[in-house]
């Protein structure tokens, strides 16, 4: 299994440009998440999905959009890039195991710079 994969690894955007960060998992996990990590900080939840067709906002959703048309894929869209969106973005997934706990598996991250 490849686990959680993300593309691209690095990207530089100009202010106002748009892009989509791709995330795919092959573990048949039903839950998927997007986080951002700013320097010296913990991860903050942007959006999450509990299954195909179901998405919801996390802690810092402004400036982002998501969709979940399949179990495997959970792309994150930035419509009008701003310098405040410069960060490292992590996608994660987890499997509901009888509701006991939520151990999340993370992708390698996308380092985004907006200039």
């Amino acid at each position, binding site marked *: 299994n490849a686990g959680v994969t993300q593309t691209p690894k690095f990207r530089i955007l100009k202010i106002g440009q748009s892009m989509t960060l791709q995330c795919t998992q092959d573990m048949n996990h039903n*839950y998927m*998440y997007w986080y951002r990590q700013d320097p*010296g*900080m*913990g*991860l*903050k*939840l942007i959006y*999450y999905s*509990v299954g195909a067709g*179901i998405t*919801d906002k*996390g*802690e810092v959703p402004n400036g982002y959009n998501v969709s979940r048309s399949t179990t495997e894929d959970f792309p994150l869209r930035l419509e009008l890039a701003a310098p405040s969106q410069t960060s490292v973005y*992590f996608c*994660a997934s*987890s499997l*509901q195991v*009888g*509701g*006991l*706990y*939520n*151990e*999340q*598996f*993370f*992708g*390698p*991250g996308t380092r985004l710079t907006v200039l």
Partner: protein
Amino acid sequence: ELKVEQNPLFLSMQEGKNYTIYCNYSTTSDRLYWYRQDPGKSLESLFVLLSNGAVKQEGRLMASLDTKARLSTLHITAAVHDLSATYFCAVSTQPFDRGSTLGRLYFGRGTQLTVWP
């Protein structure tokens, strides 16, 4: 909003020494997670602590959970250079909406550990 505080944020220690990282959280939770992150890499799950008094050990790392004190500790025994990394604790909340039984995770800021010879 649930707040998670780790201390220290930076830890520099000599090989062979012992030390403890602390993770305090602000509201009731009985699910706590420890992750490791190497520079420029993703997060790797270390421990999942599911109940009060839970203790887990892997090699030189031991994690424990006291839900009454809202405190988890990550104890490092006889540190080696390979343990140099950033360690995050995360706490889960009550379930997401839409009938989910799992809660979102709130992360601390991380403890950057450097082990030197």
